[in-house]
């Protein structure tokens, strides 16, 4: 820096003279010397500084080592000291604890010894005084003592013999007590002395005889149950008659039977919990269930015998078998034709089905009650800590197996099976009857069968909900769907199979006849008219059925949700799947409607409209201005066409359901526009002709739009666009309507291909072919 500044200061003149250079050189030399001196002093200081730093470092390290070592050593000693102390303290605490434990043990032993003495003295007197409660309490106290410790105590204590004696006495007493109590309970049972039975029943657990007590008591209760049930079964018919409930006599008896069993549980559970504690209910239920099974079996036997169940089942099975061999040749809904069979009246089954439903639902309720009570008992036992997780699981499994393997479950399955067979038969026969007795009142869109059939199916499914069985509900839903599909839809198909006979061979004749019927304002009732009515009514019925299926699906879903509030998701999915199957019957119905409408189209629309539209070809579309005004003054083509179409549609509007009529209008629009397009392509137009056509297409569009609530604009699109093209003043105007880049108009998407546009333009005789060819499309 200094040097550079020196050079900078040095004058330019100076450097041109040797003196100047010399002076500069001198100045530089001086400066160099100065710098060197400075450096020297600095360097000399450096050494001094380094030594100072070194000494500092050394001092620092010494200091550091000394203090840390000292501190850590101190800390270690403190810690070890503390730990020593802690160990000593904890050892003392431990000693204290063992001492205390021993003290309590000793205390307990002393108590045990005292009690042992007391018990051994007391028990004998108690037995002598027949005070079994006190005796049992003594035995219970004795049983609660640890036998090993007792023996050890005997070894320790000097008066060994007295302890051993007491133990012996108590052992003997316990044995004696057990015998006595057993005998006494048996006696009480024999004497049917309920108070004594309960008294001894309560003593059993104190003597450690849990299972025996429950077994003896429950079998006593069972004998009582059995005699009640037998009496009730014998009198079931008489009671029912008195109460005017003969139709559900067995359901009532069955209800009583199950209620009696449940009442036993209800009343005895508190005693059981009090004297036996939790976890013993299953033992009681196991024994009770055997009795319940036995009674159920007897009752069902009686029921089957008196209600002639087996005979009816066989009758139905035979009937179904005979039908299935026939049905290969004949159609489903014609099967009532075979009258030779000894056939069950479905109405007679109605009450029996109701009885079966009640019986099954009662059994379901019973099982639910048992399951809830027993699992609660097991849960309480688990919470009280008297049961491990493992034991709880085995107990619950054992409960399920008791339920599953019970005769009652078996009988329930039989009942459900019978119910389902009867229900299916009832449903099918009733549906067949409803279809057979179908009645239609003139002027009505629908006939009776749809209402009737859906009423029956709905009734059956609702009744199945009453069984409280998910399997049962699912099966009836499945059967309901099958029944609608097989019987009702087949009936529809058969009615539509013969087709819609317009009844006319010659179209001109058809036209005049049609006109006359319209003029008379009344449809003549002859055979072909009846056939036509049958056809349209069937179409309407099918349409209504699609709605009914949807409603049925929704109603039943709701009802199931209400009736089975707590079912698990698996069962729920099962039901949903079956309901989905029912709903899908709607698809079959829709195809029926569709195929029927197509038939109507090919026999009643197409042949009628074609000649009307073809007239377009016979009129002139090259008009001078004079001709144009003449044409417009007279009856134009479109006026004629609209009158005809209106007449045709009106004749159907009265006989078709709203939805079907809308479909018809759409079909008519499709056919009319297609045919019109064809007719146009066969004609030649000039400017005036195009003008007229455009007007005519517009009025057709207005007419069709007015005929239905659905949109027909789409159907008119092509025709409208053709009219636009033919109504152009000049070819160049096309660009106002048609965008060549994306082939779209400013208003709507173009339905015509460039080629089609060219061909249509060619229909205008005043457009030059070369101009059309030149068009960039």
């Amino acid at each position, binding site marked *: 820096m200094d040097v550079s500044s020196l050079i900078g200061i040095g004058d330019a003149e100076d450097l041109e003279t040797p003196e100047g250079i010399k002076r500069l050189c001198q100045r530089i030399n001086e400066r160099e010397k100065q710098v060197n001196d400075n450096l020297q002093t600095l360097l000399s200081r450096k050494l001094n500084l380094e030594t100072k730093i070194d000494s500092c470092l050394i001092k620092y390290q010494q200091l550091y080592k000394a203090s840390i070592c000292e501190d850590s050593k101190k800390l270690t000693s403190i810690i070890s000291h503390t730990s020593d102390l802690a160990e000593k303290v904890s050892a003392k605490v431990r000693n204290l604890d063992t001492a205390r434990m021993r003290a309590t043990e000793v205390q307990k032993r002393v108590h045990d010894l005292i009690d042992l003495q007391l018990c051994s003295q007391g028990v004998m007197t108690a037995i002598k005084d027949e005070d079994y409660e006190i005796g049992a309490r003594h035995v219970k106290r004795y049983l609660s003592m640890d036998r090993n410790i007792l023996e050890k105590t005997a070894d320790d204590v000097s008066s060994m013999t007295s302890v051993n004696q007491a133990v012996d006495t108590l052992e003997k007493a316990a044995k004696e007590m057990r015998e006595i109590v057993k005998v006494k309970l048996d006696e009480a049972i024999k004497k049917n002395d309920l108070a004594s039975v309960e008294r001894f029943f309560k003593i059993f657990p104190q003597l450690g005889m849990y299972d025996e007590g429950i077994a003896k008591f429950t079998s006593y209760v069972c004998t009582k149950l059995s005699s009640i049930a037998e009496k009730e079964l014998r009198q079931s018919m008489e009671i029912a008659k008195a109460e005017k409930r003969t139709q559900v006599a067995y359901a009532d008896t069955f209800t009583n039977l199950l209620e009696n069993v449940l009442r036993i549980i209800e009343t005895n559970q508190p005693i059981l919990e009090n004297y036996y504690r939790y976890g013993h209910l299953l033992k009681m239920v196991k024994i009770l269930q055997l009795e319940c099974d036995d009674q159920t079996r007897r009752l069902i036997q009686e029921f089957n015998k008196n209600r002639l169940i087996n005979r009816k089942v066989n009758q139905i099975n035979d009937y*179904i078998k005979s039908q299935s061999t026939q049905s290969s040749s004949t159609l489903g809904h014609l099967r009532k034709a075979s009258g030779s069979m000894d056939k069950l009246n479905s109405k007679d089954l109605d009450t029996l089905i109701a009885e079966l439903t009640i019986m099954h639902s009662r059994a379901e309720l019973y099982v639910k009650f048992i399951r809830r009570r027993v699992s609660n008992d097991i849960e309480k036992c688990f919470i009280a800590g008297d049961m491990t997780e493992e034991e709880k699981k085995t107990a619950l499994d054992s409960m399920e197996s008791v339920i599953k393997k019970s005769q009652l479950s078996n009988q329930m399955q039989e009942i459900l099976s019978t119910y389902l067979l009867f229900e299916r038969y009832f449903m099918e026969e009733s549906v067949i009857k409803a279809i057979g007795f179908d009645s239609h009142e003139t002027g009505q869109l629908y006939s009776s069968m749809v209402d009737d059939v859906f009423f029956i199916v709905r009734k059956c499914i609702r009744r199945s909900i009453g069984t409280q069985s998910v399997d049962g509900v699912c099966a009836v839903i499945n059967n309901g769907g099958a029944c609608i599909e097989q019987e009702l839809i087949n009936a529809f198909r058969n009615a539509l199979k013969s087709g819609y006979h317009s009844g006319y061979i010659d179209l001109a004749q058809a036209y005049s006849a049609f006109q006359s019927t319209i003029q008379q304002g009344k449809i003549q009732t002859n055979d072909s008219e009846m056939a036509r009515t049958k056809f349209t009514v069937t179409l309407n019925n099918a349409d209504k059925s699609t709605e009914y299926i949807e409603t049925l699906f929704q109603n039943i879903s709701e009802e199931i949700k209400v009736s089975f509030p707590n079912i698990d998701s698996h069962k729920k999915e099962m039901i949903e799947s079956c309901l989905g199957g029912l709903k899908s019957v709607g698809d079959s119905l829709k195809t029926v409607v569709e195929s029927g409408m197509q038939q109507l189209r090919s026999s009643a629309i197409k042949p009628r409209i074609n000649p009307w539209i073809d007239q377009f070809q016979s009129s002139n579309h090259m008009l001078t201005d004079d001709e144009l005004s003449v044409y417009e003054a007279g009856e134009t083509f479109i006026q004629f066409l609209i009158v005809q179409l209106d007449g045709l549609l009106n004749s159907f509007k009265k006989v078709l359901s709203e939805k079907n009529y809308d479909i018809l209008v759409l079909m008519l629009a499709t056919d009319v526009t297609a045919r019109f397009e064809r007719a146009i392509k066969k004609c030649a137009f000039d400017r005036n002709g195009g003008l007229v056509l455009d007007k005519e297409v517009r009025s057709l569009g207005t007419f069709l739009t007015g005929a239905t609530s659905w949109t027909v604009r789409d159907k008119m699109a092509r025709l409208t666009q053709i009219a636009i093209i033919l109504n152009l003043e000049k070819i160049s105007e096309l660009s106002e309507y048609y965008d060549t880049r994306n082939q779209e108009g400013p208003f709507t998407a173009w339905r015509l291909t460039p080629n089609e546009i060219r061909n249509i333009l060619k229909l205008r005789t005043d457009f030059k072919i070369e101009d059309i060819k030149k068009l960039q499309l």
Partner: protein
Amino acid sequence: MEDYKFLFKVVLIGNSGVGKTCLVRRFTQGVFPKGQGATIGVDFMIKTLEVENSAGQREAVKLQIWDTAGQERFRSITQSYYRSAHALILVYDLSCQPTFDALNDWIREIQEYANPKVLKILVGNKTDRDDREIPVRVGEEFAKAHDMYFLETSSKQGENVEKLFYEIAAELIEQARQKGGLSRNHHNSSVTNLGMKNNISSFQSNCCSGGVGTNNNSSN
């Protein structure tokens, strides 16, 4: 909801104890449940598979498998499921002649309740057993006579179980695709084995290794 393109209902039927539930469990959960109690009424499981279609694309298919009780007293429940089934798997125990003898009754049930176009598969279960009573040929012939596919399986060892359901899914997709066309044709063709010829050879190698199977084959 998961994404799937097809939903098919498959119903298993056949005598009690032939192993319907085990077949379903093996397929849906990959386990062979020991000490399986008799099924009560019906049960159902769902499994979604990916199946390669004829165009080589993989498609998700949801199979709803209905496992029915074989015991007589549940017949009126199980019968109600036939109509809506897309495929019926009729199972017998190849080590138990009575279960094979009962097939005719089951065929009658199918004729009575099922859709005539339903896909039918005959399954001889328990190939793991060495006390075979029904030779492969006999099962095959029965299937052929009743216009059914045929397969032998072992739920215990998992043999052919996946194949059974995957082939059913593939066949049902094919049928769905041909719907509108005449899918009946396919049924009446002479192909009664799932997965064509290589399948038959695999059966035979299986039963030869079984020892008893060799006798059965030579007796035919």
